[in-house]
């Protein structure tokens, strides 16, 4: 252990003991907490504590993932119980503070679960339906520590992985990551160690580690949660990645607009510089590494690896041609490696506990845990981290508790807006990158939108395609025009006014997109339609005839359907939208010449 790290650990031990020596109130105030009203609860708790003149620590933490129970207030008293209070509104603050913080007696009516110590009448946190099957690795600190606080992070094992890595040869660290079987969590599940090997093999003095937190997938919120709950695990992982590959700079790439993840990441970076965990000669090892935050405007495609590099350079987030690949020519022309931030967030624990420890979790070829975001028609909405190998049904029905009103689940939307629909009959599929791919499903970045039997598959597919259409960067026409065309055809379907041949037309457009698009956005852009058709073909056909089983209401989508169109007037691309490419297509006779 390095001297520098020993000193950090000693400081952390003292701070941790101090924190635990008096009442400690944690309130989850990330984006999720804010949406549930946690800021008002936090204010009420602060007022109550000062009114009673209590000496208690009040900490804003990230989210535990138990979003359905937010606002969540976690109260711990020295020698007393530690209790999570669910749905804690401002009016509950007096009871919580007076009884529990002041007198050490839990408020049973509001208690969701107890931590570490058994409390009569209150279940243990680990026994809650949503927690039972979880295994926390990347989210181990979520809701437990103040995001970006080095002492609290170190007290829970933080930076031990970095300290260990810095005492190893870089090649040995890389080998450890390879052996762990870690695969990318950004969608493609590429082996992380292999990817790092490409960068390590390049001898340029300036090399970048890019951490992708664009997280444009609606329905996914796990990347933002990692940053707003525990940004230090990302930073530690990023430095280890830099050391293993001989890189000099790290960039955390985040979408502009969500303040909590951005502010907390910045604060964590500053704290690391102050403690010699970033910058020159990290922990006295001789290794130097810088990390900065880069923000991007609203753009889904900015999450694509080469578009991301363009955006870091301050340009339009339009994908580049490959080759050259990022490991040869990346951001600013320097060799670069891109990982999703969850991928990197696993690295500290992999190094600290060893590759074998990680490889023992999960399935044969999907190692470790999956972080799934449960939303939609689901009782226990939020975030779960589970070992690979559980079935989708376990995740949705046991952890998620199924539909809140007990209605049957019809399908899951998985894999983000380029993913597809997974019919309920397919839910016995195991969570496993390869199993899912074989069945034509995508885990993607982990968004699971649960839909009950009142949801129209056609309507939801239209929403996904409307999203993909507005997010096309416009660089290549199979995607730019193909998406618009698909949307028009789906609009007709939703209105029950399809033309004969529309199904075949969609297929042809989709085929052109797949083979003729530059990046994954266009190549995968037909996925939502093809997957919905294969699972719910009959419903589609009925809807296209105007005999759909479920009512579909009017739909208003975003006005700026084409990039650049928010400027006054028409853009050049607007003129070639719609039927331009396909207008010459013969309309089948039965259509009577079309609309």
């Amino acid at each position, binding site marked *: 252990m390095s001297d520098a790290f020993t000193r950090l650990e000693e400081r952390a031990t003292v701070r941790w003991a101090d924190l635990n020596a008096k009442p400690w109130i944690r309130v989850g105030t990330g984006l999720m907490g804010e949406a549930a009203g946690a800021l008002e609860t936090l204010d009420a708790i602060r007022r109550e504590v000062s009114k009673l003149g209590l000496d208690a620590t009040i900490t804003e933490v990230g989210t535990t993932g138990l979003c359905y129970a937010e606002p969540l207030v976690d109260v711990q008293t020295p020698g007393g119980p530690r209790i999570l209070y669910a749905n804690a509104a401002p009016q509950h603050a007096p009871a919580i503070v007076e009884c529990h913080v002041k007198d050490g007696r839990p408020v049973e009516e509001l208690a969701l679960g107890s931590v570490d110590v058994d409390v009569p009448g209150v279940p243990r946190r680990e026994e809650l339906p949503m927690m039972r099957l979880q295994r926390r690795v990347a989210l181990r600190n979520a809701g437990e520590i103040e995001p970006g606080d080095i002492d609290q992070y170190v007290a829970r094992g933080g930076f031990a992985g970095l300290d260990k890595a810095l005492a190893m040869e870089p090649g040995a660290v890389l080998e450890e990551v390879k052996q762990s079987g870690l695969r990318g969590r950004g969608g493609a599940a590429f082996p992380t160690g292999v990817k790092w090997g490409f960068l390590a093999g390049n001898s340029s003095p300036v090399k970048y580690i890019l951490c992708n937190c664009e997280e444009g997938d609606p329905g996914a919120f796990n990347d933002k949660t990692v940053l707003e709950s525990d940004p230090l695990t990302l930073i530690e992982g990023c430095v280890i990645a830099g050391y293993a590959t001989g890189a000099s700079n790290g960039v955390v790439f985040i979408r502009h607009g969500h303040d909590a993840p951005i502010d907390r990441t910045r604060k964590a970076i500053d704290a690391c510089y102050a403690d010699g965990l970033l910058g020159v000669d990290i922990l006295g090892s001789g290794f130097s590494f810088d990390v900065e935050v880069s923000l991007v405007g609203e753009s889904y495609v900015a999450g694509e690896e080469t578009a991301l590099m363009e955006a870091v350079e301050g340009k339009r987030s339009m994908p580049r041609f490959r080759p050259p690949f990022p490991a040869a020519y990346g951001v600013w022309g320097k060799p670069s490696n891109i990982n999703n931030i969850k991928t990197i967030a696993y690295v500290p624990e992999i190094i600290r506990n060893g590759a074998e420890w990680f490889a023992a979790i999960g399935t044969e070829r999907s190692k470790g845990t999956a972080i799934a975001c449960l939303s939609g028609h689901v009782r226990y909405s939020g975030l779960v981290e589970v070992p690979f190998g559980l079935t989708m049904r376990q995740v949705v029905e046991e952890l998620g508790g199924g539909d809140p009103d007990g209605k049957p689940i019809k399908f899951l939307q998985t894999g983000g807006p380029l993913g597809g629909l997974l019919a309920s009959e397919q839910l016995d599929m195991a969570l496993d990158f390869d199993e899912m791919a074989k069945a034509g499903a995508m885990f993607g970045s982990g968004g699971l939108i649960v839909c009950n039997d009142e949801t129209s598959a056609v309507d939801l597919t239209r929403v996904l395609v409307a999203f993909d259409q507005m997010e096309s960067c416009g660089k290549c026409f199979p995607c730019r025009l193909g998406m618009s065309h698909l949307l028009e055809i789906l609009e007709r379907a939703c209105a029950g006014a399809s033309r004969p041949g529309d199904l075949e037309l969609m297929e042809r457009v989709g085929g052109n997109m797949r083979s003729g698009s530059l990046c994954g956005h266009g190549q995968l852009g037909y996925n939502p339609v093809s997957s919905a058709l294969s699972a719910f073909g009959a419903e589609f056909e009925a809807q296209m005839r105007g005999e759909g089983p479920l009512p579909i209401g009017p739909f*208003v989508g975003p006005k700026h359907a084409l990039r650049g169109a928010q400027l006054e007037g028409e853009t050049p691309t607007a003129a070639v939208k719609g039927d331009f490419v396909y207008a010459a297509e013969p309309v089948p006779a039965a259509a009577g010449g079309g609309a």
Partner: protein
Amino acid sequence: MTTAADPLREQVRSAIRDQPFRTRTVLSSLLSVQDSVGYLPEAAIDEVALATDATINEVWGVASFYPNFRFKPPADHTVEVCWGPTCHVLGAQRLLQDALAQLGLENEGETPDGRVGLKLNTCLGVCAHGPAMAFDHALVGRITPETARARVAAMRGGAA
């Protein structure tokens, strides 16, 4: 281009100068101006071009690409409605159409008196609490049509 005492231009310049980014680019500068001024005034384009050694065309190219950039001062209040898939299955269209009707709008835009602007958001990032809206950037999850109507009415400054 260099007008002396133009307060707006001064604000733009200091936003560019004091931006919280280690690496300064056209995009980081534009985002900083919009955060500080609330929109991109004409002056932003040439000041950013000057500061980043880019052409006016390059700056316009970036500014026009990302739909969060705006070129007119924002309305007094902003309502955001999430139309992402989770919120959609949880009833976002109803919320959206109520808000449009209340504000007399047909799509994203502003009321003629400039009091309220309505924006569609592809995902407010709080799907576990869908359907979600934001009022002057404060997130509200699991919002009911009644609450939404009351909040919009309060912003519009009249009865619901």
